[in-house]
């Protein structure tokens, strides 16, 4: 639990220092900026607990709503991502709309 709080604090720092345009190549993790759209903050705050946000654009060309749903399910069930059902739906909506190949 303490680890979780620390990770959320880290997430806040990472988001707070985001300053680079999406098209630019980030030089470090804190400069990765996800696309501005509803659900961005919620998505970033949860994903960044365990991994840098570059995993999202890296996989975007491979992903669609179905594969994002499976991924979120895997993160919750296999890796213990602390997401409620409502939060999972919002994250799925954001990723499907902004990071899918179609």
């Amino acid at each position, binding site marked *: *639990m303490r*680890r*979780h709080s620390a*990770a959320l604090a880290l997430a806040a720092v990472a988001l707070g220092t985001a300053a680079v345009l999406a098209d630019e*190549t*980030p*030089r*470090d*993790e804190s400069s*990765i900026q996800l696309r501005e759209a509803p659900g961005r903050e919620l998505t970033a705050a949860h994903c960044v*607990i*365990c*991994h*840098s946000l*570059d*995993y999202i*654009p*890296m*996989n*975007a*060309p*491979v*992903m669609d709503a179905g*594969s994002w749903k499976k*991924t979120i399910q895997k993160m919750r069930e*296999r*890796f*213990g*991502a*602390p997401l409620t059902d409502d939060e999972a739906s919002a994250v799925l909506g954001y990723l499907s709309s902004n990071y899918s190949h179609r």
Partner: protein
Amino acid sequence: MITRRGMTLGLTGYWLSAGVPRVARADELGGAATAGGGTEALIALPGKKPLIKRAFRPPNYETPLADLAQPFTRNEAFFVRYHLAVIPEVDVASWRLRIGGKSTQRPLVLSLENLRREFKRVSIAAVAQCSGNRRGLFMPRVPGVQWGSGATGNALWSGVRLRDILQRAGVGADALEVVFNGADAPVLGATPDYLKSLPIDRALDENTLVAFEMNDRPLPHWNGAPARLVVPGWTATYWMKHLTEIRIEPTPYDGFWMKGAYRIPTGAFPGRRFASQENPETTPITEIMVNSLITSPVSGERLRRGAHAELAGKAWDNGAGIDSVAISTDGQRTWREATLGRDLGRFAWREFRWRIDTSSAGMIHITTRAHSRNGTSQPAKLTPNPSGYHHNLMQELMLEVA
């Protein structure tokens, strides 16, 4: 004049129109140009030279093509792959390796000094290759770290035989698997820690090492300091870094990273089977498939008519040893053999060279295909698998002589 982009498109078109299964192009295999969804950058981790960054955290960085041209891949250029984000800097003096488990007769605790002084030192040249090397080149594409061709490298690993450690601890008659843990850990307590197991006979194989040196220098932090497992011929998922614990067990290890990851369809690939972890649908990935990589020239390169030009690359397999590397310039109708370089050991990669005929102007379409002494060859068609493992297609290269 033909631009590199034009050449690439032209080649793709050729394969589509010819109805031939698509094979990897050298410019794709180069990594940074295409695989990875446009997020690549050359970034240096502390102690490393700039590598192709696939992900910051957990850190996943691959070796640029130019750094794969040497017989031994330099430590500062060697690829980095982690699953979990908590990666401690292990203090060598206080580091201990614990050997236990239900099938261990005499549990042990060893320091690095113990390993250095009390066991026979062994060195072995071997390719360390991520199971997902070239995943980013799969068609259709699959999720995961979108590796190009640089999640591989060859190094001289030095340390002691795992067998000698296990025998000192006493291997029970009922021993089935040996389980390995490293110092890295998940951020969340609910995330499965990264542990792997090996069949007992592979753990007792004379070529399986606990290594503390890489290319005659202490293991770099990012490659597993102070000691890691080296399992020549098997993909690097088993090469546990920052090794802290070894358990000899009478039952199959049932952790996520064995039961839920690094699995391939049962019977789909050749190679050693891991019987105690196999089920009718899936089985753990084990041995490296025969493969090769052209390190120069790169596809699209223009050569001067009449000038000396040479193709160079590396070929490797599961440790059977490379039999030959065949080269075709007529769309795989006829093949000629490349000249093989020095044999660095059967688990190492083998250099190959081939003189390119530049006597007449025009396009040269080169295909390379490695053959292993185990009877397998690089295929023209990938075996689909959901995690994108074992990408080992024959490689295509288009060059222009002008």
